């Protein structure tokens, strides 16, 4: 029961409930997210993670309960909430027919920013998509689409970002790239609420982890606090076997600063494309 003297929480959720017909999806969810931190909402499929994110990003209305995002009430100040947030949903919300650059320009225009072209070029460079910027998004690999999706979410520098299962369906390299992006965001002062069903993802990224199970938060704490819930560790000697992920990454050579596109548009001229 420690109340840390933090600044006003960036996200404050109190007693949110939501049901669809007679299916209770959220049964009273309460938590705070400190400004500038990464908060992971961990839960299995059907635990209500996506419903909660949709409520906080004004796509759905809660049945009861209140919540504020960046000090704006999600029920009464929806326009202000939308100014303060960005949502990256489970499925990459990019326009396949437009190029990567056009997607970014579109969002910059819709956020009423000046110099949308400059913003687009900066983000393409930051997400290693400059080469692919003038190709249609339909031709992108899963990892590139997700990078573009997150880049679109950063336009206008919203102080709060919701990432709903940001790495579902990605290969290990793309996953690590997304993790790096999320860490950079938090370092820059952005508050990140991410949902995930991967335990290691929450462990890797989050300052605090809340476990959402059957519509309520059953635990909420730092990784260290959650670990203390179980009996203290006993020392056992276990041979350190490389995980399959370690093997995979070693074999395919993941030097993590190199965000090359893995779709074959290599920058070296190989003359492999006879036309």
């Amino acid at each position, binding site marked *: 029961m420690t109340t840390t003297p933090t600044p006003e929480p960036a996200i404050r959720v109190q007693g949110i409930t939501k049901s669809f017909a007679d299916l209770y999806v959220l049964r009273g969810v309460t938590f705070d997210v400190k400004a500038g931190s990464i908060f992971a909402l961990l839960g299995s499929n059907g635990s209500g993670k996506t419903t909660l994110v949709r409520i906080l*990003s*004004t*796509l*759905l*209305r809660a049945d009861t309960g209140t919540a504020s995002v960046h000090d704006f009430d999600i029920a009464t100040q929806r*326009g202000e909430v*939308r*100014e303060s*947030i*960005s*949502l990256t*949903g*489970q*499925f*990459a*919300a*990019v*326009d*396949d*027919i*437009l190029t990567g650059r*056009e997607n970014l320009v*579109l*969002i910059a*225009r*819709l*956020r*009423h920013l000046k110099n949308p072209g400059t913003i687009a070029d900066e983000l393409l460079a930051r997400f290693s998509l400059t080469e692919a910027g003038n190709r249609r998004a339909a031709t992108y690999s899963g990892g590139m689409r997700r990078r573009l999706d997150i880049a*679109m979410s950063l336009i206008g520098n919203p102080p709060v970002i919701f990432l709903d299962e940001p790495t579902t369906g990605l290969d290990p390299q793309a996953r690590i790239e997304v993790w790096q992006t999320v860490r950079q965001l938090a370092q820059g002062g952005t508050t990140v609420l991410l949902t995930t069903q991967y335990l290691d993802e929450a462990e890797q990224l989050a300052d605090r982890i809340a476990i959402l199970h059957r519509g309520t938060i059953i635990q909420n704490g730092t990784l260290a606090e959650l670990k203390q819930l179980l009996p203290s560790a006993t020392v056992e000697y276990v041979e350190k076997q490389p995980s399959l992920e370690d093997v995979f990454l070693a074999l395919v050579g993941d030097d993590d600063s190199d965000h090359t596109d893995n779709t074959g548009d290599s920058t070296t001229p190989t003359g492999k494309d006879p036309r």
Partner: protein
Amino acid sequence: MTSHILSDTRVLTARSLRHILRSPDTIITTAVTPIALMLLFVYVLGGAITTGSGGSYINYMLPGILLITIASGIAYTAYRLFLDMQGGIFERFQSMPIARSSVLWGHVLTSVAANLVSVVIVTGVALLMGFRTGASAGSWLAIAGILVLFTLALTWVAVIAGLSAKTVDGASAFSYPLIFLPFISSAFVPTDTMPGPVAWFAENQPVTSIVNTIRALFAQEPIGGDSWIALAWLVGLLVIAYGCANAIYRTKIR
């Protein structure tokens, strides 16, 4: 937020116009069926049809063909709207501080632009096939106005279909009855040759009054009471479809 409605609508209209420019086949396929019908009716069936109007048959049937063009073109609006809702970009727009109605108006204005292009193509082919009119500039404007109103009304019907469809096929299937409506009207043959109940339906459905009005404008004849009936149908349909589409939209975005 409402202060951005014009700029947001402009940006979103530019987006979906770009979709059309990237797949111009949507405009071409919209124009191909009416052109094929026109060839069929003028060169195969037309010789046996007596319209009693004295003019050439293509002059008689072009108004109906133009309505068929629009009725088939608006299906693409339902299709594009449905794909937006499926793909997640719709939710992205909804979570952003943009004017709510801009998302629909972008598609609607694109529909008007695309259908006007199709109508111009079909009219061009009709001119090559011998369509002639002495219509004044004012009559052309009136015809364009009727066609835009018809497109707007049917596009809002398409928005209802796009918003409420469960499958891609469902999103465009609603337009088939609309395409066939002109066949049971005065578009291709005079209604007085039809048996009683069919003639009654043909004379009292909206296509007949719209076709008769456009035909009179092309022929530089006085437009009778039909024009008021046509206008009432078009405005009535537009208001109802717009109201229903927006009611459905509000349930989707709350």
